[in-house]
């Protein structure tokens, strides 16, 4: 690695900095005495679209749902799959069946015990309404092989199946059989998690209460990722919906909430000096990317895309877009992760090369058409990045126009070939979960770039079918060099996320969703 990921601001690299995905001790320190009770109020920016966990892959829903529901398999702190409601995972030699013995005595919030029939019904429902139901495509049949056991029969061996199945994106949670018979978004919100649903007032709050009959796994010392041994301490957890960052901060400082998400960096810096508050830095929260539309001129031309690739000064974009909390990283995986592909593309990423950019622009025969950068105001990073990128590429004579529309419209337009050339997008879960999500967005029916390329398709196939880690790493390295050559997307950098809590909040560690169990107040 010649380019070491650099951090934006030294001051932010404090001892408190916690990188998501970097291993740390899962168990709370024995010296700290946990106290039961208390009301935990969290502030997050958006309404959950649904508390029917299977149907929504949005972060605002996941933040809540991961405390209400659990799945057979989940991820630990290092994003490695671990059994949760399953006692363990037994894989057959030929890779054609998976046996999941279930933990016994696990209670749903309605008091019923979780049985194999609930699991089968839930997963059959997931095949119907699950937002990422594709992950069960290779499952031919789900068979109840005991009161406390289900067996998956696969249509073909899929080495990466469990990794997909453990994804918390839109988790394949287990709900009671009678709820599983209901259509999407019409269920009672009943799970097996450490907190149970109390009420949801849209645009105001969601309240959860401790589930006293929660049965924790005993084979861990404490929580890890979305699994392990979870212990609920606080009586209630209330998620207040406060879209405006300033209002979230004010609520935190006034003591109305004990934890707030998405703190603007300038405010976080100020809070670091406040003894009443703790700032949680989650580095490597998301990739900031610029996605290219291969169907609409001028970005249908590969040389034009290369011109843009060389014209962007990533450091400036990142500094402004993230308000100074970022890491520069050319890779399409986080450094230190299994599939990080080394130096590929680092020379291009390092610094803009306007001469080369102009050369490519000439070669593309560009004649001053609009380069439409699609973005939305809902995520400040998106629109700020779009504005700075537009400014930079205009320096080499590209007629860049920022097209800011609201999120719903953006999500619709980017599924068409018209109306956009570039799209600024933070990809959070894809890189977090490993190489597959990132790669899948460049191939298949709906590639982000609106067109497929045989070499990219091949690299993706090699990635998902590779029998060994080494083969898959090689496939991902190949993909990364293709990305820097064909430019389906441009990597801008790694975005951090600032969260803050009151100093009396103990045991909290940032993860993909805030965990309200295993935290307590002093």
């Amino acid at each position: 690695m010649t380019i070491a990921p650099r951090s934006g601001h030294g001051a932010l690299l404090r001892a408190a900095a916690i990188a998501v995905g970097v291993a740390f001790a899962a168990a709370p320190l024995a010296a700290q005495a946990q106290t039961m009770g208390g009301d935990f109020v969290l502030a997050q920016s958006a309404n959950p679209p649904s508390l029917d966990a299977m149907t929504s892959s949005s972060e605002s829903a996941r933040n809540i749902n991961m405390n209400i529901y659990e799945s057979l398999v989940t991820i630990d702190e290092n994003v490695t799959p671990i059994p949760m409601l399953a006692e363990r995972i037994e894989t057959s030699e030929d890779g054609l069946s998976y046996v999941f013995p279930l933990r016994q005595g696990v209670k749903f919030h309605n008091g019923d015990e979780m049985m194999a029939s609930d699991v089968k019904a839930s997963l059959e429902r997931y095949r119907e309404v699950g937002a990422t139901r594709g992950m069960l495509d290779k499952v031919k049949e789900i068979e109840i092989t005991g009161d406390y056991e289900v067996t998956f029969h696969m249509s073909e061996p899929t080495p990466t199946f469990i990794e997909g199945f453990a994804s918390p994106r839109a988790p394949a949670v287990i709900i009671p059989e009678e709820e599983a018979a209901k259509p999407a978004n019409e269920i009672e919100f009943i799970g097996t998690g450490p907190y149970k649903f109390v009420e949801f007032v849209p645009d105001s709050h969601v309240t959860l209460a401790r589930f006293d009959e929660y049965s924790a796994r005993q084979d861990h010392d404490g929580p890890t990722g979305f699994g392990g041994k979870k212990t609920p301490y606080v009586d209630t957890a209330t998620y207040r919906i406060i879209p405006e960052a300033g209002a979230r901060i004010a609520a935190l400082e006034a003591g109305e909430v004990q934890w707030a998400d998405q703190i603007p960096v300038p405010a976080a810096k100020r809070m670091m000096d406040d003894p009443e508050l703790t700032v949680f830095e989650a580095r490597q929260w998301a990739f900031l990317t610029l996605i290219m539309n291969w169907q609409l001129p001028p970005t249908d031309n590969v040389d034009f895309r290369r011109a843009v690739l060389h014209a962007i000064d990533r450091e400036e974009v990142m500094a402004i877009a993230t308000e100074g909390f970022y890491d520069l990283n050319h890779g399409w995986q986080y450094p230190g992760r299994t599939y990080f592909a080394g130096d590929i593309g680092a020379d291009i990423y390092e610094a803009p090369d306007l001469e080369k950019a102009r050369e490519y622009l000439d070669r593309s025969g560009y004649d001053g058409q609009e380069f439409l950068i699609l973005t939305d105001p809902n995520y400040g990073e998106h629109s700020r990045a779009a504005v700075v990128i537009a400014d930079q590429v205009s320096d080499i004579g590209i007629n860049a126009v920022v097209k800011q529309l609201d999120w719903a419209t953006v999500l619709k337009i980017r599924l068409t070939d018209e109306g956009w050339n570039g799209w600024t997008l933070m990809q959070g879960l894809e890189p977090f979960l490993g190489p597959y999500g990132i790669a899948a967005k460049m191939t298949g029916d709906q590639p982000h770039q609106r067109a497929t390329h045989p070499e990219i398709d091949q690299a993706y196939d090699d990635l998902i079918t590779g029998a060994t880690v080494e083969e898959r790493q090689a496939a991902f390295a190949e993909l990364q060099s293709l990305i820097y050559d064909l430019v389906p997307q441009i990597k801008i950098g790694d975005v951090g996320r600032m969260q803050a809590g009151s100093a009396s909040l103990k045991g909290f560690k940032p993860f993909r969703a805030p965990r309200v169990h295993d935290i307590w107040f002093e």
Partner: protein
Amino acid sequence: MASNDVDSVPGTFAPALRELGMQLRKLGAHRSIQIGGILFGAIVLVAIFADLIAPFDPNENNYRAMLAAPGDAHLLGTDAFGRDILSRVIHGTRLSLVVGIIVVIATGVLGTIIGVLTGYVRWLDSPLMRVMDGLMAFPGVLLAIALAAALGPSVVNAAIALTITFMPRTARIVRGSVLVVREMPYVEAARACGAHDRRIVLRHILPNAMPPLIVQLTFVFSVAILAEAVLSFMGVGPPPPTPSLGNIIAEGRSYIREAPWIALAPGVAIAISVLGLNIIGDGLRDSLDPRLRNL
């Protein structure tokens, strides 16, 4: 107003012009109009000469000067992009006025046409006014936001949304004047003399509907500036990086503790523009339309 000389030859504008000049002089002497004129005039000058006055390019990013406090380099500080707030407020003021002017013209023209049609053409009155009542029954901001979301964010679309929102009330005021004038003896006389509808409307009805319309449009101007700021604040105004007074405030909202100067200056700029227009409007109402003084 003085247009009851039914026999005056069309095309002789001299007397009309002379009268207009006198009116303007009379208005110019009004104290409210003077004060408001100075306030609003200053804003208009800033908007016209924005390019000359603004010390920086309003869209120039500088990540080495993000959220800089007001000082020598940046008189009103910088925003999260390191852009100069003063320059952005100056250009944002220009945009506010442009939107305001478009809305005033569009509202004036459409409001007059619909007001005259409903007031003068009896069979059109009821259906058109029901539509106007329907539009007026919407909470104005919500209607404008929904329209702006539907049309997409741009300066022109914001102006269209605001025009649709404000036009019904203007039409109603014009209609009110038309209904009064329609029954006046001199209009009856003109009709008896065989004057065409078009001539009656243009020569007699419109001039009389003008004073309340002008007063109303002054207020439409000021409300349009406020409403444009609201639309931009809510994220449905002109797209970035275009500075608008509302979107500067919206951006500053996240930094109200760390950089209160971002949100402060554009709010003051809006207040001065609107205050100036309101004072002018008061003065115009006093001198043009004494009947309206109590409203």
